[in-house]
């Protein structure tokens, strides 16, 4: 984002307008602030808190919140706050990486289908096919199948991370592809693309120079919503016991482990659950604000 404050600045650019509109979306601003706090806590929290999330202190089992353990401890005396912070690192990195993969696939399929008429039919049939797949059951099945193989290949932590990111990525690109294709179809007919073509610009350069910059806004909105979706899917998988293992927890896994101790120690459910909910809620609000800000019909109202 630019530093110029839209209304007061003498020079108005597209991004200053977008930024101006975005700042006036209260939910989006609140979302940015809350997400910022969460990300900051996850990044510098372990450094400040300084407790190893895997450190077992069997004498301090199920401890109440205290200065040493701000969220208490679990049934074998591990610090919950440190676990939530570490879980957040994994959850957020799964969310962002899976989103990048799905965005890449979705944009690629969308641009190819929209730009090259010959590919359109095939790629859109493929998209429809993916949309008709029952995703959650299939995700569970794929994890069951390949978990042990990938763990053997890349080690227990990297293996499951790659597997989850990959399957979430390849099952969530369809919406992006559809939106991108629609936008590319209208862009392709416009004069500047025709002009570019008339001076002999090759297709790949038209796509990179002229088409992609113009479909940036739907892609950005897809990206924010994609992160939220990926975090929810990952937590759901972990919550069903088929995602990350206990010694490499994410927020969903912490919730799954904590659910059995819910009556004894509600903090184990509340904190990870709250972390997922607040993160997803703020990302969705940011996405909402971004969509309004990037929509030229709404902007300036």
């Amino acid at each position, binding site marked *: 984002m630019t530093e110029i404050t839209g209304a007061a600045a003498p020079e108005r650019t597209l991004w200053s307008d977008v930024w101006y509109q975005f700042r006036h979306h209260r*939910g989006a601003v609140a979302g940015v602030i809350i997400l910022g706090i969460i990300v900051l806590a996850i990044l510098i929290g372990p450094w400040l808190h300084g407790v190893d999330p895997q450190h077992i202190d069997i004498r301090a089992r199920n401890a109440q919140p205290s200065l040493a353990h701000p969220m208490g401890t679990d049934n074998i005396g591990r610090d919950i706050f440190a676990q939530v912070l570490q879980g957040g690192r994994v959850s957020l990195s799964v969310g962002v990486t899976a989103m990048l993969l799905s965005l890449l696939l979705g944009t690629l399929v969308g641009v190819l289908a929209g730009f090259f008429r010959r590919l359109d039919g095939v790629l859109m049939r493929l998209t*429809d*096919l993916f*949309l*008709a*797949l*029952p*995703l*959650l*059951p*299939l995700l*569970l*099945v*794929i994890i*069951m*199948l390949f978990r042990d193989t990938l763990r053997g290949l890349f080690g227990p932590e990297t293996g499951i991370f790659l597997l989850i990111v990959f399957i979430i990525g390849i099952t969530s690109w369809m919406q992006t592809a559809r939106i991108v294709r629609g936008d590319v179809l209208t862009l392709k007919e416009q004069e500047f693309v025709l002009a570019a073509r008339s001076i002999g610009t090759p297709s790949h350069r038209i796509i990179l120079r002229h088409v992609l910059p113009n479909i940036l806004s739907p892609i950005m909105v897809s990206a924010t919503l994609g992160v*939220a979706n990926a975090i*929810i899917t990952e*937590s*759901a998988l972990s*919550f*069903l016991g*088929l995602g990350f293992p206990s010694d490499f927890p994410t927020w*969903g896994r912490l*919730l799954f482990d904590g*659910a059995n101790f*819910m*009556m004894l120690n*509600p903090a184990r*459910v*509340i904190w990870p*659950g*709250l972390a*997922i*909910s607040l993160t*997803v*809620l703020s990302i*969705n*609000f940011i996405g*909402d604000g971004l969509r309004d800000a990037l929509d030229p019909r709404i902007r300036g109202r």
Partner: protein
Amino acid sequence: MLTYTLRRLFFAIPTLLVISFLIFALLDLSPGDPTSNLPLTIPPEVREQIRQSFGLGEPFMVRYLKWLHQFSINEPLNVLEQMTGWTIGDGGRMRVISWQTRSPVVDLIAERLPQTLWVVGLSYLLGILIAVPIGVLSAWKQYSWFDQFGTFFAMVGYSVPTFFTGLVFIMIFSVHLGWLPMIYDTNLKVTDLASFWLQVKQMAMPVMVLALYNAGQISRFMRASMLDNLNQDYVRTARAKGMGESKVLLVHVLRNSLIPVVTVIAIGVPQIFGGAIITEQIFRVNGLGQLLISGIQGTDIPLVQTLTFIFAILIVLFNLIADLLYGILDPRIRYD
């Protein structure tokens, strides 16, 4: 309309064939084996015989075609027989057999279906009943405090995952207040008012959790659709004629705005079945979702293949229904 329906049904067949093949092939890769749960004392040749009796010795394509035949021809005939009491054929049809229970998969599904249908159906209905008024009022008083609140409610509804709301509900209503039972008791028979009340109490939480989630999504669509219609000329005309605001809103605008919402509701039905997988796990409702999870954990391949394919059929079917509803409800859209 009829030709369009037939054409769509006809085009759905290849899609479903491809999906069934994908599901079957994917699950066939898994290391599951019907004898893995049997005692170790069984000699290997007996094991081999058991495996042969499940048809595992045959090549992949033969097994796929047999499964497809059993699923799409034999089982529907069995269901038809049970429903009508007729006898079709000699009764010697092959059935899809679960590896875990050694009973036909379709019987297992029929056992579990009512619980899922009740929970899912009621929650969807309740979700719509919550969402439509919120959407209508939010759009009517756009940017009012009610609209802000409704938007926030909708955002929370679909951002907070069902597994967290479910656990929070259990903590509040079962652990702290002790009002509602934590675990769903499927053996409960509704015979009198007292047992009916128990049934209501045990369904309250799973239904509420799913209903909140559904209401969040539907109310957003309802609001957007109402806003689209409120700016139309016919609304101004109706108001100019001096028609009462409630009549404009509830007769003219609402009816037109419901068209896209109805299709969204139809498309969402299969998704709800997916959402029920998690909710059933939390509240121990022994419905289809739990059957699927137990099948996956026990590597019961035929069960998982069949259930996953049923989910896929639901998705294709409800997409078709949504398109047809659009054509029926909106006279501007004609598919011929």
